[in-house]
């Protein structure tokens, strides 16, 4: 059967959930072959085999961490030559998209980014994407080369299926262009909350939160639901919450099961980042706020009374 290359997103050997979703999607097209690069590559084999990887290609060269993007492209080019896959699937993270893009040029292939679904088609995999702030659904495919497709987190269920997971060392010849050197890397302090793009529930605050200290109200709700915390651009630009938590066109695009927007008016730039959420809830004082056009359930009211009451109610029910 045809093989599909799945590029594994992991942190020191801990495989992140979006990769397991890719393995589900890959099986619709062929047999998944996982490629794992960087420190801890060998530690991923068990979980990849439990999720359908028939083969696992590993390389733990230092260079992947020392330089930006390019060494990984060198490695994937080698993997494509070894496997001759029918498609290459990559998680739609900032780095994933860049690695995919350089690889696509290198191997003379078209690229599709930010797919939210993937299925087998008569002339190769067909990807579904959202366009123009999710007001359109677009179906497209790659017409030249090996399709390189990046897939957004939360696009498919994780389905365990046991496969052989035969481990092979990937031999990489690094090219002349090394890429940008990483002089230092400062890990982000762990919040203890789920990663924003991967979370099943996201609770976001906007201009109406009115101050960095007031984000505690948003965080308390998030923690009662085991959710990630997001922020609108207005809240980020005001310095109330870090840019890494920004939801919207210039921040993260999220597609959780539940999105709760508090004190967010719902400008087009914000909607671009959250409109594909399955269920949308909003709390806002302004009954005319455009966010209410999107909601499954909206409360017109003061977030500083509604949100704490909601949090209290959730905690009481959990208790």
């Amino acid at each position: 059967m045809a093989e599909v290359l799945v590029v594994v997103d992991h942190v020191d050997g801990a495989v992140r959930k979006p990769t397991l979703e890719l393995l589900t999607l890959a099986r619709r097209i062929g047999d998944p072959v996982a490629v794992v690069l960087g420190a801890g590559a060998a530690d991923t084999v068990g979980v990849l085999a439990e999720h359908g990887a028939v083969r696992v290609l590993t390389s733990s060269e230092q260079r992947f961490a020392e330089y930006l993007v390019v060494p990984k492209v060198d490695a994937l080019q080698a993997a494509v030559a070894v496997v001759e896959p029918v498609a290459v699937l990559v998680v739609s993270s900032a780095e994933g998209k860049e690695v995919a893009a350089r690889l696509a040029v290198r191997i003379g292939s078209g690229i599709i980014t930010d797919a939210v679904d993937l299925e087998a088609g008569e002339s190769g995999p067909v990807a579904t994407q959202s366009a123009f702030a999710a007001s359109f659904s677009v179906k497209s495919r790659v017409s030249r080369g090996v399709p390189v497709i990046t897939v957004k987190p939360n696009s498919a269920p994780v389905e365990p299926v046991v496969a052989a997971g035969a481990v092979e060392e990937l031999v990489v010849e690094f090219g002349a262009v090394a890429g940008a050197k990483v002089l230092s890397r400062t890990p982000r302090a762990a919040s203890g909350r789920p990663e924003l793009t991967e979370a099943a529930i996201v609770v976001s605050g906007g201009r109406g939160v009115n101050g960095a200290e007031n984000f505690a109200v948003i965080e308390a709700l998030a923690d009662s639901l085991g959710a990630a915390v997001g922020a609108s651009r207005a809240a980020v630009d005001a310095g109330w919450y870090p840019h890494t938590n920004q939801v919207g066109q210039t921040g993260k695009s999220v597609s959780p099961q539940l999105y709760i927007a508090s004190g967010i008016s719902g400008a087009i730039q914000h909607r671009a980042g959250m409109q594909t959420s399955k269920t949308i809830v909003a709390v806002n004082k302004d009954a005319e706020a455009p966010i209410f056009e999107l909601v499954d359930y909206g409360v017109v009211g003061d977030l500083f009374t509604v949100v704490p009451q909601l949090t209290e109610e959730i905690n009481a029910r959990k208790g």
Partner: protein
Amino acid sequence: MSLRIVVCVKYVPDASGERGFADDLTVDREDVDGLLSELDEYAVEQALRIADAADGAEVTVVTVGPGDAKDALRKALSMGADRAVHVEDDSLHGSDVMGTSLVLAKAVERTGFDLVICGMASTDGTMGVLPAVLAERLGVAQVTLLSQVAVAGGTVTGRRDGDAASEELEAPLPAVVSVTDQSGEARYPSFKGIMAAKKKPVEALDLDDLGIGADEVGLAGAWTVVDAAVARPARTAGTIVKDEGEGGRRLAEFLVGQKFI
């Protein structure tokens, strides 16, 4: 020697208008006003700041697009860029990122460059991969998604704030840089800048000038095919309640009903 900075900019449909697709499934440019992509303003801004700090520099803005795309170049020139290059050719209609990047790479090579600066993504296609594709085509390092950038002594340095970590990066020139909306507020064109922009040179190029065949770009030369673009059905109107003291509890009931609690 003078630092040659090239900024790649895009003319995009205004996001506050009704954006859509034409019959050939390319972006409809007829029914909605265009403008310089907001995220490219940050690239122009950083180019101008780097040029100001350099001992002699020239900032060239390049765009690929139809006649109207000159508006995007004019905006960048009025902000302070020195000159502009406009690649316009009927065969370019419907180009995907591979076609567009080919044209940009040829145009940038023709102009000559030490540093290419791009925005983090366009506000219409929003792929965010063009800077990486361009770097690959030009055979240089990418120093991308920077919230801070500086050039000194033939080296570009910058900070990239990723999900897991913040990285300090460094690469020798020539290189391709992309900057985020955290890199620094873009300046407004002054009246003087707007007047001066009218006298700045805008070089017009077509595919022949760049040695690119019509079959390498446009819809026919695209490496991807759009089979369908369907407007999402409007969301069915949700329940909206006014808080009269029980808003939070009623919302909790809704979430219980949806099995989130």
